[in-house]
């Protein structure tokens, strides 16, 4: 299929449809509204439904219901809206329900701003809801990857029976790049024998529930879920490396920031500084083993993010003091320029001499 020029938010919508998702529940919020606007047009063309809920809270609970009934289902929002969805996300995790949630991040806290941000990293990877829980968190860095990871997210959600988050940002949502939706190798999707969509007098009733009033029962449920998390950490971690083999300094960044970092790496290489880039694609599970290996062979690491320093704590944990880990970031919706990042690299390179 030929490539088409599309906006990130539109690509999320199209990729969802191509993944067999026929239900979307959402609530308008900048900078992700084009996802629901696109689906409002596209869903009726494929006998699907795009329903605007009365709130993000209602939207995620509609997702819960549709998922419980066995459907592939999508919701999307931006930072303040994700906070509102966190109750429903926790219940979906506790009920082992799959869905895909897109967060096109904007600046925070509070109403914050509407410009690109990565300030929800902690929320996405550590605290998307109350309780012992994780979501698989995928961080695309290009519009093509928005398409690929959105389609991948639906499979991962169904395979592991859990919500999967696409952690994007306002820049990826709004920018246009060529994309194709070629077919990916399809994964084995287990049958949803657990779904509560009517037993049809053919089986015992199914119960979708996150309440376990006996503490030992609840502990067992959580421990079993964490075994699944361990399997995911074993099988599904993804990252990309660029010029890391001989690098004295390795930048670690994801999403739109990885694009800026890559340009800064090229600028540094042109100026004779040996720099590479490590780009996590799964933020949970985090590519800790690969970063640990980098930490052991490079002289210093620089984490670049659109926040005050969040992923840098995971990088430090992974590196285990094998080398110094520094941070550079802008926040509030500000994007660092390539020169800004390069300047930081040059300063670090000078200190290493």
């Amino acid at each position, binding site marked *: 299929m030929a490539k088409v020029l599309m906006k990130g938010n539109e690509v999320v919508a199209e990729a969802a449809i191509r993944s067999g998702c026929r*239900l979307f529940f959402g609530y308008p919020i900048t900078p992700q509204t084009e996802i629901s606007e696109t689906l409002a047009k596209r869903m009726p063309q494929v006998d699907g439904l795009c329903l605007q*809920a009365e709130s993000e809270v209602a939207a995620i609970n*509609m997702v*819960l*219901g549709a998922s419980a009934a066995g459907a592939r289902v999508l919701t999307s929002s931006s930072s303040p809206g994700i906070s509102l969805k966190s109750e429903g996300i926790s*219940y979906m995790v506790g009920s082992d329900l799959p869905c895909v949630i897109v967060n096109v991040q904007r600046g925070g806290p509070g109403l914050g701003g509407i410009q690109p941000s990565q300030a929800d990293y902690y929320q996405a990877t550590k605290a998307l809801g109350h309780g012992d829980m994780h979501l698989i968190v995928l961080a695309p860095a290009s519009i093509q990857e928005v398409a690929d990871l959105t389609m991948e997210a639906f499979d991962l959600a169904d395979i592991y029976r859990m919500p999967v988050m696409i952690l994007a940002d306002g820049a990826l949502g709004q920018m246009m790049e060529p994309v194709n939706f070629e077919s990916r190798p399809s994964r084995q999707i287990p049958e949803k024998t657990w779904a509560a*969509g009517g037993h049809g007098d053919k089986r015992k009733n199914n*119960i979708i529930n*996150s309440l376990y009033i006996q503490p030992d029962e609840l502990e067992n449920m959580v421990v079993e879920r964490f075994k699944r998390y361990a399997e995911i950490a074993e099988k599904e971690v993804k990252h990309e490396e660029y010029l890391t083999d001989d690098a004295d300094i390795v930048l670690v960044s994801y999403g739109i920031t990885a694009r800026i970092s890559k340009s800064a790496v090229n600028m540094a290489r042109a100026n004779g500084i040996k720099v590479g880039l490590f780009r996590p694609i799964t933020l949970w599970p985090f590519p800790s083993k690969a970063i640990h290996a980098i930490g052991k062979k490079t002289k210093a690491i620089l984490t670049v993010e659109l926040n005050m320093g969040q992923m840098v704590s995971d990088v430090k944990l992974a590196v285990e003091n094998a080398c110094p880990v520094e941070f550079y970031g802008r926040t509030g919706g500000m994007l660092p320029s390539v020169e800004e990042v390069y300047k930081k690299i040059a300063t670090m390179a000078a200190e290493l001499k």
Partner: protein
Amino acid sequence: MVVFDKPKALADAPFHYCPGCTHGIVHRLVAESIDELGCEGRTVGVAPVGCSVFAYNYFNCDMIQAPHGRAPAVATGVKRAKPENMVFTYQGDGDLAAIGTAETVHVGARGENITIIFINNAIYGMTGGQMAPTTLPGQVSTTSPYGRNIKIQGHPIRICEMLSTLDGTAYAERVSVDSFKNIKKAKSAIKKAFEIQQAGLGFSIVEVLSTCPTNWGKTPTEALEWLRTDMIPYYPLGVYKDITAKGENRHV
């Protein structure tokens, strides 16, 4: 010959409800309606948070437990995914009329083709007798120990009256389970609500005035009496909207 038996749709599980609580009666009426309509295999029930949270253990149809107040949104998701399903929520007054007010109003506004069974006992039961949105003026609860003062805590909400103003509401009736006669009427209302959903006519709700002897601090019989003398005057029984009716109840 068996003349009185447990409905097929009611699970063979002991209720956890307190002595004198009327949840058990309403569960039975819901199950009888499912049996009579022969729809258990395509019915999905949504349990709330509150005393009836364990409703998922008491019905033999597929069941989903929803976050507090969100049952109508969860039911919406089920119904939109599988429109052929009969979808009902079973919710108490705190769940439906406080934390879940927005979700409740909007299923009415959308004319969502689901049925809500709304248990109004004017108190929070599960957490131990706190003030509910439907607690009567002057009524004592653990969080209105001097009686609900409308100047401080505001007024109760009359849900059926409010929802009957919405164009998407097809059927809204308030019933009571304080007497044999009223239990029979409650049964007819619940079955009718399901039939309205089956016919695809839109949103239906049956509000059931119920007792909570434990948290009201009354014996079961005193509680039934208080329901009659205090609750019914504030929450009059009757059909508030029925788009299948001819005449005055069509729009109230």
